[in-house]
């Protein structure tokens, strides 16, 4: 009994202390960047971290007269660690905003904290559509899987592709991609067969053999970037390209970071995505050059642009609120629009997802290097899943 009283007393004391701390005027604004810096998704974490630091380097580290401090934390791709780190950043470091979140569970786990503590969370990478439903304080600076895959299905239907086999990694974004693509493609009169591959899968050969047997017009593939390169090579190794099956999909399989080392086998692959390092604009030139310099020649990919734009969102939001966080910052970020390296972007005030152009691209050799060259634009795409829901 005594213990219980002590406990509640302690809890109360801690609470008042923390509140007192928050009330003191902050001279530095802390941003907590929670990323997978080790483990299987580490390369995504590095891309985002480099891009975020690049943004700070290009735009200075003071906003509204206050110094910005970026705290990078490694969640090792483990959801409960991500949540604990987010919680510590909120109660101990008193961050104004948290950002990062390498994949869906890593974003969903800390989501309730954002609501509870009223700390906005900028999701830079996780691309499952439902992420922003998890908390009204989540704003997304990256993209959603349906957003880039519905245009793919439309493009395929318009370009004489009748029968498609989809092959996706068996986890949230993969299933999202599969549903988005198949749904749209069948309503346009196409025929779809679905295959799912375990996430930890070293060898694609059995699945690709199934694809070869089905003899579709095109193979729609979504695998996490990194594995994409391996997948692509095995696709060609199996001679699927020669048997007339076209490879289409979201830009993960032709990830800019790896595209060059995938080699000629990638040429001709059609993908839809919101960002290509070859995007022709002054903003993107500045971004790509800066990134390459910071990352030892490595090319930025769509993860990096999510990190870069996430920082932009935070900077501009803080400018509007004059350094205040919480609900005010969230409101400031909603509806914001700007020209990013990927093209024009706006944050949908209702869903807090980005509204952006989706580009249809083809892998080509430009100046000796492989790039996703954009050849068609579908302007101002909203997240289709939520768009149909609200109608």
């Amino acid at each position, binding site marked *: 009994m005594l213990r219980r009283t002590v406990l509640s007393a*302690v809890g109360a004391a801690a609470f008042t202390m*923390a509140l007192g701390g928050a009330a003191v005027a902050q001279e530095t604004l802390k941003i907590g960047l929670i*990323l997978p810096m080790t483990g299987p998704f580490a390369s995504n974490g590095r891309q985002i971290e480099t891009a975020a630091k690049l943004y700070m380097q290009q735009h200075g580290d003071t906003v509204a007269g206050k110094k910005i401090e970026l705290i990078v934390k490694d969640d090792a791709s483990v*959801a409960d660690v991500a949540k*604990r780190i987010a*919680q510590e950043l909120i109660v101990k470091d008193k961050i104004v905003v948290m950002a990062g979140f390498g994949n869906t*569970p890593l974003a969903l786990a800390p989501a309730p904290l954002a609501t509870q*503590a009223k700390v906005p969370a900028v999701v830079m990478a996780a691309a499952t559509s439902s992420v922003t439903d998890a908390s009204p304080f989540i704003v997304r600076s990256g993209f959603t899987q349906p957003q880039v895959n519905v245009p793919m299905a439309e493009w395929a239907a318009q370009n004489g592709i009748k029968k498609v086999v989809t092959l996706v990694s068996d986890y949230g974004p993969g299933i999202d991609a599969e549903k988005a693509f198949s749904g749209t493609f069948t309503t346009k009169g196409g025929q779809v067969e679905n295959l799912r591959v375990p996430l930890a899968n070293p060898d694609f050969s059995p699945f690709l053999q199934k694809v070869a047997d089905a003899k579709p017009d095109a193979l729609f593939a979504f695998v996490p970037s990194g594995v994409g390169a391996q997948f692509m090579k095995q696709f060609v190794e199996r001679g699927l390209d020669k048997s007339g099956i076209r490879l289409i999909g979201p830009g993960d399989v032709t990830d800019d970071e790896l595209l060059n080392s995938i080699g000629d086998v990638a040429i001709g692959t059609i993908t839809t995505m919101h960002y290509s390092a070859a995007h022709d604009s002054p903003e993107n030139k500045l971004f790509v050059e800066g990134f390459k310099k910071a990352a030892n020649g490595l090319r930025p990919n769509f993860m990096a642009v999510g990190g870069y734009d996430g920082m932009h969102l935070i900077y501009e939001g803080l400018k509007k609120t004059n350094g205040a966080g919480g609900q005010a910052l969230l409101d400031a970020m909603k509806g914001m629009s700007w020209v990013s390296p990927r093209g024009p972007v706006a944050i949908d005030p209702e869903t807090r997802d980005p509204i952006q152009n989706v580009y249809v691209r083809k892998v080509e050799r430009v100046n000796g290097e492989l790039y996703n060259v954009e050849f068609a634009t579908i302007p101002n795409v909203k997240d289709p899943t939520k768009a149909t829901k609200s109608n």
Partner: protein
Amino acid sequence: MKSHTEDDVRRVLTRRGRWGFSEIAFWLVAVATLVFMPDRHLILNEIAIIALFALSLDLILGYAGIVSLGHAAFFGLGAYVAGILAQQGIGNPLIGLAAAALAAAILGLATSFLVLRGSDLTKLMVALGVALILGEVANRMAWLTGGADGLQGVNVSPLLGLFEFDMFGTTAYAYSLTVLFVLFVLARRVMASPYGLSLRSIRDNPLRARAIGIPVNRRLVVIYTLAAAYAGSAGALLAQTIQFVSLDVLAFHRSADVMLVLVIGGAGYLYGGIIGAVVFKILQDYLSDLTPQYWLFWIGLILVLLVLMDRERMVSKARTLWKRTANRLTHRAEPLATTRTAREI
């Protein structure tokens, strides 16, 4: 003659069961952290959970010589049971805890017949296989577990109807610490009982144990089931205090981490898991703050150095000191319990 032996045995057993000064101090320090380290409760909560998980592994590894690289199966099952119960509206944490322990115990009982065969390596791999299959099952049953996205909407009611699980992790830590303490006391009692002693004899020499009439298999099945229940409870604590469950509760790295934690702290004296958890987590936290990218290197280096400097000798030295302090009044040095695992099997 007979009564003399009996007396001897009884005396040894009671002495084993008695609480030493340093043990009491240890737990007092743990309680003190509740009051004096209010902004560290979140990591302390995680430490307490890993400590309980490692304690569970210690029961089978340190006391029965069963090496397992698949202990996450029970941890993960417990986490999912507690998480799903809370998600479905049965938010009482204690009910969730009990259900998780029960479910894990049943799984432990069922799989013990698979696991308790063959050499060390075979046991280790079968246990690992069980955990991996369970991980796949959880992935497949996305309608129940949330699949790879993780289980959302875990709403745990206030503890005992009074204490809300707060942002600072104070309730969480107090809850986890209490569960750890209660289960620790239970384990301590079990291990000091004749049953616990019979387990040790099995660990040290199963052939001889069988020869003197100990029902080896039945003893092992019981301890495996108990350890599974412990691991399930640890999983439940994680699910309830984090209020989120993802597939990695069943992942290989969980099993491997807990093994590391236990081996760092030393197996076979119950405190090993707890000490290991404290050391490992604090190191990890500190190093990953210093260098979020490359902390793994320094952890690796520390592990290598630890082994090269002969951790066992250091631990047994430390334990001698510990025992000496603990037994100051009795003036009788107790024979050291060996930490050697069942290599002889």
